[in-house]
């Protein structure tokens, strides 16, 4: 009896796992009946993705998934990926990683071995991308980061990890370029930012860049996460009399920064704050005080990137135009949904794979990675080109948004802008009287 139970339990286990292991997920390669026997052969190419559909990155994860699906749909409707006499249709194979590092590792292995996927779209956030990298490297699959902005991912020597979004080090540099172009005399720069890994990385890099541009750092201070009062810091800041201010970290502290600058009546010619101003809630909370405040963004609805701009710059355009992109997104996500930058960056990652595979004329990982080295194209998300050695994104520019007359306008770079920058921004007193940018 004892033995029987034991054996039964064992058999049960083995059956359970054997059954689970052999889910025939791979669809047989399909040949369209319409294709003539001599025409191109059609096959399905899977791009794999561990996506955070639950957990702390659930919102960003869902947006990224929609972005990937929009890009895949566009590729399939526009002739697929042509390699030799084959045409590949793209399909996204995704699992939910619950925003957890342990799950990411299991799922990357599953994608690489069970699903035999060779091109992976990295999980959301830098931490999860780091967790995935050793496993991806072990199985020799390519990983394209659309949600891991930190520079350190690309400083570890992973050859098979490439980046589509702009790295942290570039977040505030565009704004500095803009100020320098508008007013070469505004030299006094102050930095006030949150003491968190990401905002530190952003502002350390910005500081180095500012020194190169000839800015003079007159004040620099960090504040801990969860601060509810910045007035001691801002009083010191006032004494330093800066022309330009960059800083922030998350939404709450970014809003607090703007709010208290107004309360203490500290007038600065140009302000760029991470995260907060890019959300509509910022204007709702501050009203006219938000006028003229800028923020860096990976992408924003209304950017001017288009086939015409690409032609002017002499680069190739690939992917849907912005109208097509937004329409396809709304068909998928619902009429009320607004695409966030996560959608655009995930779509760009899929498009870059397609473009690189076409360029390499192969689905071999090494050849595709090599083809990526000198790949350059523009899509709805902007430019795409990487540093060959590290895989870091160098082509894409952050766009700078600015609140003008109750609207979020894109003011930089010129190839993306839909409005002129408002510089210097109105003083707090002027704003209190109802003056807005452009009024």
């Amino acid at each position: 009896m004892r033995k029987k139970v034991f054996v039964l339990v064992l058999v049960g286990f083995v059956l359970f796992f054997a059954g689970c292991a052999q889910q025939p997920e791979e669809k047989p390669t399909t040949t369209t009946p319409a294709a003539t026997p001599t025409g191109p052969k059609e096959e399905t190419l899977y791009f794999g993705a561990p996506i955070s559909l639950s957990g702390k990155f659930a919102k960003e994860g869902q947006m990224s998934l929609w972005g990937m699906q929009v890009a895949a749909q566009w590729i399939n409707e526009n002739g697929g990926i042509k390699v030799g006499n084959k045409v590949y249709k793209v399909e996204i194979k995704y699992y939910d990683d619950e925003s957890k590092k342990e799950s990411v590792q299991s799922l990357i292995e599953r994608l690489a071995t069970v699903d035999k996927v060779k091109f992976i779209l990295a999980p959301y956030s830098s931490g999860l991308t780091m967790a995935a990298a050793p496993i991806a490297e072990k199985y020799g699959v390519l990983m394209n980061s659309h949600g891991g902005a930190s520079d350190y991912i690309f400083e570890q020597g992973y050859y098979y990890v490439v980046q589509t979004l702009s790295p942290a080090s570039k977040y505030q540099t565009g704004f500095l370029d803009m100020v320098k172009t508008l007013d070469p005399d505004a030299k006094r720069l102050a930095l006030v930012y949150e003491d968190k890994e990401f905002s530190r990385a952003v502002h350390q890099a910005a500081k180095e860049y500012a020194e190169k541009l000839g800015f003079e750092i007159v004040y620099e201070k960090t504040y801990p996460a969860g601060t509810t009062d910045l007035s001691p810091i801002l009083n010191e800041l006032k004494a330093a009399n800066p022309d330009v201010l960059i800083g922030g970290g998350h939404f709450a502290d970014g809003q607090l920064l703007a709010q208290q600058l107004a309360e203490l009546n500290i007038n600065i010619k140009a302000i760029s704050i991470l995260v907060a101003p890019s959300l509509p809630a910022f204007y709702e909370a501050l009203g006219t005080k938000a006028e003229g405040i800028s923020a860096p963004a990976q992408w924003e609805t209304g950017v001017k990137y288009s086939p015409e701009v690409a032609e002017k710059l002499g680069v190739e355009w690939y992917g849907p135009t912005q109208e097509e992109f937004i329409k396809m997104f709304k068909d998928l996500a619902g009429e009320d949904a607004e695409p966030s930058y996560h959608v655009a960056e995930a779509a760009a990652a899929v498009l870059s794979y397609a473009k690189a595979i076409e360029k390499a004329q192969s689905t071999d990982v090494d050849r595709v990675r090599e083809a990526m080295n000198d790949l350059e194209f523009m899509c709805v998300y902007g430019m795409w080109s990487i540093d060959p050695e590290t895989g870091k994104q160098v082509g894409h520019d952050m766009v700078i948004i600015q609140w003008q007359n109750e609207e979020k306008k894109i003011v930089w770079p010129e190839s993306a802008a839909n409005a002129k920058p408002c510089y210097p921004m109105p003083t707090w007193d002027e704003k209190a009287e109802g003056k807005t940018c452009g009024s």
Partner: protein
Amino acid sequence: MFKFKSLIIPFAIYIILIAIGLSQPGLWQPIMYIMFYIGIGVALNNFMGLTGYVDFGYVAFLAMGAYGMGVALGYFTYLGIWAIPLGFVLALIFAALLCTAVGGVALRLRGAYFAIATIGVNEGLRYLIEGAKIWGGSEGIILSGKLRKTFGPEFANYLSTFVADAALIIIIFIASVITVYMINSRVGYALLAVREDEDAAKVMGINVTKYKLIAFFTSATIGAMIGASAWTLKLTYVFPEDVFFIHYTVEAIVIVMLGGAGTLLGPVVGGLIYGALKYYLSVILPGFQLLVFAPLLLVIVVAFPEGVVGFVKKKLQERGIIEYIT
């Protein structure tokens, strides 16, 4: 005199899991995912299951282990391969220090007060590390680049895809032996008395704080070893937000309760059910798995209030096989 017979079933489960992981393509990481859950279950069970105290700050010990290994590999990289044993030693030392500090004070509290005090320790420690910029502060310790430079990319990969997993497996085997030893020794009997009625145990002349500390210490050090191997060595980075994430404590508690607190087999079965369900649900129903997972957990907990193993034990009380289940 110890009932080492009861180790047969858990060891058989581990060996079968490992065999499946090695033989089936694509199942090694999922098996290690399950093993991680079994590991934190077994580790926490040594304290929570035996004493009946619920430690909501348990993840802090895993974090200490993760930092021990992180500090060794990050700051003593020049020791080469010796940095890894040093990492385990540091993990033990850090966990022991925290254990003394927390145990000496908090273990004198009971019930909800103990639980609250431990949450405080977990959060406080995290803010201390971030605020005082200890070990990289909020930027954490990132190791992959260093490891790849010191050991070469292939060996670095081998470290995080094989050595880390092997270490975790060994730790789990040892932890199970320790649990059996604890349950069947004087310590186990004393703890049983504490769990049933702490005041009565005190009156009987049992030094309750001492035995609780022993259980706390054992559990903490096993946790630290798991943190050192399954987190730092495997993931090649330590971020304070990640390692002090209270979610892991909750998961460990669920696993212990699911399988049966205070039993050897309990956390093993609990971890297996929890890990396997979670993995396959996230593969089959990406995005909706929690909708299925939560009711399933509820059903199991309602059907087996003493845990799956507790239930089986009760059913099999008269049978001979009971000697194999502890």
